[in-house]
């Protein structure tokens, strides 16, 4: 829509410009006010592939590229961006012109950009590596983002952001704390879908971070601000987000809890993996354990916890019993581990599970007398048994060893042939 408006404006200007000049009459023209150069005027010099500035740098503009760009096709004049020359100048003009002012047409995107992390880095940190308009969009060959040829097309954006966020040198120089994020992303389920499967629905950087107004995750207006993350993911994962907001975690986030997990707490932000691979199923247990310390401790004492600790995912991990996006407290009848649902949950793996079977405590604590009295006393008994046996036989063996060595030494002193050895020498 805006593009159509711009084009209309350009057409109007094209008609109105000469008309106004004509209306002004020949007297003003006769004053010798310099005429702004036309695109052809500019290309007379800049179209030459060997055109260089005083310092020797090329100043060539490829005429066909510009003609094919959105600006060229829209009939934008060189001087519309290079406004220094709009009022005409002596040629050749000054060596340094003001940078092109995108804002004069693209007011909203530039305003958005000014709120973003890139503009901020340039302003505050004086980090001149931080991206400007031209760093992402290019200069004379800008194409609309919807064009597959465009630098900012969905399929190319990863590489575009990767020019800095995948460049170790710039990452270091720009103090980009998160590191080579583009590399991490490439191996994620989103990155693979985007780069290997060529899915147009797979998210690229801008789908989560926005494009012009990319903000730090600590910024409350950011799309990746912690409590906002489920909304951002929910743009695509709508059903999951709906479930999530009804879960204890979602409810806590809505209440402003700084601890309750959002999507990225478990799935990570850039390395999101398929959930059915063993590595992820096993690794995510640790994530639950960062808050649920007691539960992971008792889980590790069970067969389930031991097998997953070894790196095998065939047995139950947290989500298998508790669910993932719909977790609610056990007291809630919707909970998979509520009294009403527990047997059904056990049955997911243990087909023959019964009420009696489900009396097994998957988080039993042998040191908790109140919760597991029988286990507590059994554990105490076993501890005493082990300590008793090893203490007694430790002493017994130690003394025996000492005595045996003493006899051996004595036999050696008596000389050969009188060895006490009981081996028959075969």
């Amino acid at each position, binding site marked *: 829509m805006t593009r159509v408006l711009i084009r209309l404006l350009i057409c109007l200007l094209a008609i109105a410009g000469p008309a106004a000049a004509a209306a002004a009459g020949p007297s003003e023209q006769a004053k010798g006010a310099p005429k702004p150069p036309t695109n052809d005027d500019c290309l007379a010099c800049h179209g030459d592939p060997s055109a260089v500035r005083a310092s020797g740098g090329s100043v060539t503009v490829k005429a066909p590229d510009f003609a094919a760009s959105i600006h060229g096709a829209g009939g934008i004049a060189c001087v519309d961006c290079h406004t220094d020359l709009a009022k005409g100048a002596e040629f050749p003009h000054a060596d340094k012109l003001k940078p092109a002012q995108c804002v004069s047409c693209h007011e909203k995107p530039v305003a958005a950009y000014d709120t973003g992390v890139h503009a901020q880095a340039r302003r505050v940190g004086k980090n001149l590596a931080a991206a400007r308009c031209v760093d992402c969009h290019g200069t004379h060959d800008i194409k609309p983002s919807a064009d597959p040829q465009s630098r900012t097309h969905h399929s190319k954006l990863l590489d575009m952001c990767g020019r800095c966020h995948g460049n170790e040198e710039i990452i270091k120089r720009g103090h980009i704390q998160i590191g080579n994020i583009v590399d991490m992303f490439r191996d994620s389920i989103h990155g693979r879908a985007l780069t290997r499967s060529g899915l147009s629905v797979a998210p690229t950087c801008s789908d989560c971070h926005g494009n012009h107004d990319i903000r730090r995750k600590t910024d409350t207006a950011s799309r990746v601000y912690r409590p906002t993350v489920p909304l951002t993911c929910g743009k695509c994962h709508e059903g999951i987000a709906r479930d999530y907001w009804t879960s204890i975690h979602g409810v806590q986030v809505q209440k402003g809890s700084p601890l309750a997990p959002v999507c990225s707490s478990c799935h990570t932000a850039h390395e999101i993996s398929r959930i059915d691979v063993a590595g992820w199923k096993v690794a995510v247990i640790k994530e639950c354990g960062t808050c649920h310390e007691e539960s992971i401790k008792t889980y590790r004492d069970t067969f389930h916890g031991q097998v997953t600790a070894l790196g095998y995912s065939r047995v139950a991990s947290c989500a298998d019993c508790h669910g993932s996006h719909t977790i609610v407290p056990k007291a809630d009848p919707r909970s998979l581990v509520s009294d009403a649902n527990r047997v059904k949950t056990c049955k997911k793996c243990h087909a023959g599970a019964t009420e009696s079977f489900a009396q097994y405590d998957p988080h039993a604590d042998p040191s908790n007398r109140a919760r*597991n009295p029988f286990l507590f006393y059994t554990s105490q008994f076993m501890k005493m048994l082990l300590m008793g046996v090893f203490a007694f036989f430790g002493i017994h063996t130690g003394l025996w060893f000492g005595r045996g060595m003493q006899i051996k030494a004595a036999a050696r002193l008596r000389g050969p042939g009188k060895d006490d050895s009981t081996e028959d020498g075969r």
Partner: protein
Amino acid sequence: MTSSTPANAAVTATHYRRFERTDRLLHGFLMFSFLGLAFTGMPLLFSHEPWAASLARIFGGFDAAGLIHRFCAIVMITVFVIHLSRIVQRLFIRKDLGILWGPASMVPQPRDFFELIAHMRWFVGLGPQPRFEHFTYWEKFDYWAVFWGMGIIGGSGLVLWFPETFAHVLPGWLFNIAMLIHGEEALLAVGFIFTIHFFNGHLRPEKFPMDSVIFTGRVTVHEMLEERQDEFERLSNLGRIDELASPAAPQWVYTLGRSVGALAVTFGLVMVGLILFALFTK
């Protein structure tokens, strides 16, 4: 050469029979299944240790290790059942009530207590080395420890293997207890066999590096006279010592026994090392 008098038998025979072939074979199967169970079970008990995952991987991962564990369990249970049936046979068919009480019995008796005291006094130089019978008190402890362990670990293991079946007769919270005692008893058994039993049987200075009797089934006359004076005297007086006289076992039995024994001791000590590493780096 045979002799009619006990005294003659003592000097003419080179060896005495101690273990029957079936018992030696059973011990062999017991060794292998025990090692298999220990090496596939300990990775679970110490699953948080870095060596645990590597060990499980050596056995082909958790699924394969679980399969080996269950296979070894079946072997061990079979050994146990055969052993029990041999006891029943001796008791009820051969009417050998001597295995219930008396000098040749495995059942603990007052003399074991006195032997223990006397042995400990000898360790510290407070008395002479005691005289022993067919089974010493530490051998009886080894036997009953394994006997009890088989029942406890085997029983709890079966419960854990077939929880859904056992849930028909047992409450589910017992699985928690089964899990606990299966692991703790296993730790006790592994720790005991791979240190105390190895020391008593093989590694103590009198026997080092190993005692072949469990593989050959025979002790030398010298060993009999040094270690089981009371048994030698009793059998000599009964005139039955001759029945036990035997030539040395064939060379290959010694070679096999020593190889198998050395291998088992090595593996066992490695496992003890891993466990100690885990306990002291906790």
